[in-house]
């Protein structure tokens, strides 16, 4: 027995050693291949980009294919972006290992510009003529509050839409709500028929913030972005009322059970399968919803306290753009080249979205013909776009990180049904001190 044990452990040690040796030799191979690439005259750049599902893979693959045509001497080394509030990126920065080009959001820009990790792009914007390529209405996505450029944007000013299933509303004789009273009536009818009135993926916290913002913008069009910039206080009437409205509707049974544990797949399934009458998501949901529900799906303007405020605030949307997109590390070797690649990637992302994703909501002008026609809802939104009176921000576009974390937690708590408006206000105030 003892002998066998000895033999076994020896075997284990051996196999581990082999495995380790294998790892080592792999690295050796990589090094070799990179040097052979260098011989061919290719420059390698590390890029940090989203590449985790069909949607994001489409963008990246398209842009890389275009890049190969335009700059054949550049080879991109992809580091897949993690959905982690920028932690991976910050860790890279802290260890001096930031990729040459990286996809980034506003709060990381704010951190990196203080720690000198991000390249200020002002001169390159001029050099590359990037500003002329911007949509005039999306210039807010190029410049940060200090009037500098840190990233090449592509996303444009996106919106939060309140989607609804027209068929379910018609079948049950429910009027599309314009006021909270009508919303309550709709909730009661749907509940009686065993239909979930409204679905939201509240496990991720940003939809909760957006949902709260939908209500807040009924009272103050600047919504949460006024709180973020310190132009309003959580104890202002508008914000207390908005919280109370949500609490009332949640108590009336608006949400499915266990809503704060629903992820996108679960919440969207409820809506796509016709089990939920309404759904909250950004306008990028148009494609998926149209695919699932065809012409049965539409979006409504957010309901308000009364008919007059509904009409006057109809075009005050929640959501909006913020500086972000492809940025360049301050320590990259070839700044010219990295900047060129970053701006090229951003332009191609916008191009892909416009021509193949059926969305006109991009930061930059696109002069290529549309491959995939806009969905009917997108047509409607495109008509609404010029009339939009105001937008706010998504959670990831907030610049005050303390406020961001606090509003994320507090607006999720609002949906749990065991939270009061007073708690909401005092939690926000205490976190922002």
């Amino acid at each position, binding site marked *: 027995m003892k002998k066998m044990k000895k033999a076994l452990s020896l075997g284990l040690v051996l196999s581990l050693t082999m495995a380790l040796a294998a790892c080592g030799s792999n690295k050796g191979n990589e090094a070799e291949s990179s040097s052979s690439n260098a011989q061919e005259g290719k420059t390698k750049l590390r890029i940090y980009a989203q590449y985790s599902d069909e949607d994001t893979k489409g963008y990246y693959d398209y842009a890389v294919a275009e890049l190969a045509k335009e700059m054949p001497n550049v080879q991109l080394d992809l580091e897949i972006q993690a959905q*982690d*509030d920028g*932690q991976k990126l*910050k860790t890279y*920065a*802290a260890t001096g290992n930031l990729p040459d080009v990286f996809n980034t959001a506003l*709060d990381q820009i704010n*951190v*990196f510009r*203080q*720690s*000198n*990790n991000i390249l200020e792009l002002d001169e390159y914007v001029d050099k590359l003529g990037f500003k002329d390529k911007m949509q005039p209405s999306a210039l807010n996505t190029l410049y940060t509050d200090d009037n500098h450029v840190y990233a090449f944007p592509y996303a444009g000013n996106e919106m939060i839409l309140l989607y609804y299933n027209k068929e379910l509303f018609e079948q049950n004789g429910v009027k599309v709500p314009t006021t909270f009273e009508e919303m309550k009536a709709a909730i009661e009818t749907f509940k009686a028929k065993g239909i979930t009135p409204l679905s939201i993926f509240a*496990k991720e*916290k940003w939809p909760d913030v957006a949902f709260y913002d939908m209500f807040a913008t009924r009272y103050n069009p600047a919504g949460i972005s006024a709180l973020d910039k310190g132009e309003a206080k959580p104890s202002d009437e508008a914000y207390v009322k908005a919280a109370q409205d949500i609490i009332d509707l949640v108590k009336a049974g608006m949400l*499915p*059970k*266990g*809503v*704060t*544990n629903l992820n996108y797949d679960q919440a969207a399934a409820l809506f796509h399968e016709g089990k939920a009458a309404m759904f909250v998501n950004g306008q990028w949901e148009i494609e998926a919803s149209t695919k699932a529900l065809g012409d049965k799906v539409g979006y409504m303007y957010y309901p308000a306290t009364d008919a007059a405020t509904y009409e006057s605030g109809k075009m005050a949307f929640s959501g909006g753009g913020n500086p972000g997109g492809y940025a360049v590390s301050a320590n990259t070797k070839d700044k010219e080249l990295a900047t060129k690649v970053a701006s090229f990637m951003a332009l191609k992302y916008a191009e892909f979205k416009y021509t193949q994703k059926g969305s006109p909501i991009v930061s930059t002008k696109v002069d290529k013909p549309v491959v995939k026609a806009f969905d009917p809802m997108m047509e409607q939104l495109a008509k609404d776009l010029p009339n939009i009176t105001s937008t706010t921000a998504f959670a990831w576009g907030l610049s005050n*990180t*303390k406020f*961001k*974390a606090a509003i*994320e*937690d*507090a607006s*999720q*708590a*609002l*949906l*749990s*049904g*065991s*939270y009061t408006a007073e708690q909401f206000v*005092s*939690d926000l105030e*205490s*976190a922002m*001190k």
Partner: protein
Amino acid sequence: MNKFLGNKTAILLFTLPTIVLFTIIVMWPTMQVFYRSMFDWDGLSAGKFIFLDNYKRLFEDRLFYTSLKNGIIFAIMLAVLQIGIGTVLALTISNKKIRGRKFLRVSYFIPVVLSVTVVCQLWLAMYNGEYGLINKIFETLGIPYRQDWLSNGKTAIYAVAAVNAWQNMGYHFALLLAAANSIPEQYLEAAKIDGAEKWKAHWKVTIPLMAETYKFCFVLAITGGLNAFANMQIMTGGGPGTDTYTLTYMMYRSAFRVGEFGYGTTAAAFLVIQCLIVTFAINKLIARDRIVY
């Protein structure tokens, strides 16, 4: 033996690798935590020394008290459920007359070897407010006690703690079983001859003799509860709102979501002190003298 212990160079030589590793991996980072907790620091740029301001802020922060309370609830749940049920199971299995002991012993230990993610997903499905097994059981039994377990701020922390308690109960069971089996049989026989009932004998003889193992189990369960993070990260994300925050989760939020590493390490520093005090107290209270048979 004495000769060996007299050779100080040899002792130093043999313990040196461990001491060096321990210093680098445990002591140095722990000291860093205390040092960094006195900075206003975003984790990237050079921090600003603010001495005890972070601690002052911590004690005024409502989130801190929520986290502290949840940590204590978690620790108590773990201690009571894991050690309580673990004891009952261990004593039952240690009885040689019980059939299928081997099978039960292995079954109780299975959750321990499962990954925490797997266990959390399993329980997420069971807790589901609409189709979850637990609510279905209540429904079948006709008890109107259906709950929205994880989305209700009042039940969420207990629901999450129960999952951890269930998963790691087997570990405590294994420790306690080993302890129970190592007690010489004469003691129980003597109690039997004196006319003690089975459970009374356990209560008066077995359990007191297992005190040293209990000490270890309590330290594990309580510090484990105060440190809890993985279960809430996977199951609730600290939510709904902040209802399932613990100090570790608060540290995570401050450092990675808000970008205040200095303040995050302050929460961590408090946690370290808290765990040390608890460990010290348990060591003082239980099994102060070594038990030798």
